[in-house]
């Protein structure tokens, strides 16, 4: 997904309601706040114990501690996000590390095709590997110029903005690379395996 191009002359100018509407996927409504959704208690992970790991179909698993993760090349990114509970928030501002950078550190097995993101608290979500690369996904630790708050998934969450936001696993601790697709926490109970908001892939069978 290409970054939105904003010319200097338009910075700060209000976008027309019509232009905003074109950015809201079908069945969604716009919100200005940032709703907090959670399927469980908010973990408060000690950063000294935090790790991010890539495992599964890789030649050697790799794991970063918090300080090493902060040394990886990071970038700021601005994205529209859509939750399957029907809210869409425009221009959310994040800071984090592209999954491309992380995957550069491992040698993928040629059978690698799917990924399960796993989190503190046991949450999982599944995403096809090709949808996590080429600038489409990040592990974010900053939001709106501040460290990512625990209720929004801090210290770090996956951000895959082109899919419904349940795919953007809060409190993410790693990626498991696999040959076959394995349904995650919500996908195993009626939610769509893919979750493209523009196709309204909300539930199994959509």
């Amino acid at each position, binding site marked *: 997904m290409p970054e939105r191009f904003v010319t200097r002359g338009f910075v700060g100018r209000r976008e027309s309601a019509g232009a905003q509407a074109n950015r809201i996927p079908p069945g969604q409504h716009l919100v200005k706040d940032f709703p907090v959704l959670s399927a469980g208690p908010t973990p408060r992970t000690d950063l000294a114990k935090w790790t991010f790991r890539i495992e599964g179909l890789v030649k050697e698993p790799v794991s970063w501690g918090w300080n090493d993760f902060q040394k990886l090349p990071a970038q700021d990114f601005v994205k529209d996000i859509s939750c399957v509970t029907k809210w869409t928030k425009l221009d959310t501002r994040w800071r984090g590390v592209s999954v491309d950078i992380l995957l550069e550190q491992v040698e993928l097995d040629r059978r690698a095709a799917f990924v399960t993101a796993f989190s503190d608290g*046991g949450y999982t979500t599944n995403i096809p590997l090709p949808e996590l690369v080429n600038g489409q996904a990040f592990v974010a630790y900053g939001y709106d110029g501040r460290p990512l708050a625990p209720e929004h998934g801090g210290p770090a969450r996956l951000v895959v903005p082109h899919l419904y936001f349940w795919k953007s696993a809060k409190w993410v601790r790693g990626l498991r690379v696999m040959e076959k697709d394995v349904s995650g926490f919500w996908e195993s109970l009626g939610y769509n395996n893919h979750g493209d908001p523009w196709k309204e892939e909300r539930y199994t069978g959509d």
Partner: protein
Amino acid sequence: MSEPLDDELVLDGNAAAGALSEIYGDEMTTVLAECASCGQVDPIGGLLAYVHAPGIVLRCTACATVMIRIVHTPRGTLVDVKGKRIPPPPPRT
């Protein structure tokens, strides 16, 4: 989980009473449920309930393991009770 928990979003299992009675056609909140992970027994109405989510998640009060999940879809309601079992009712006195 050994880390401290933030429970701002948590309700009790009575928040799932409507959804459960739709499914089972009965009052379920007084039914006792045992956590398959740690053995804690609570009435379903006393479980930790997370409803600000794509579904309803009921968790053990002692270890926060998921005991019941409920998702409403346009094609029906799905329930997962893998994480718990219901012991026989206590003898009447």
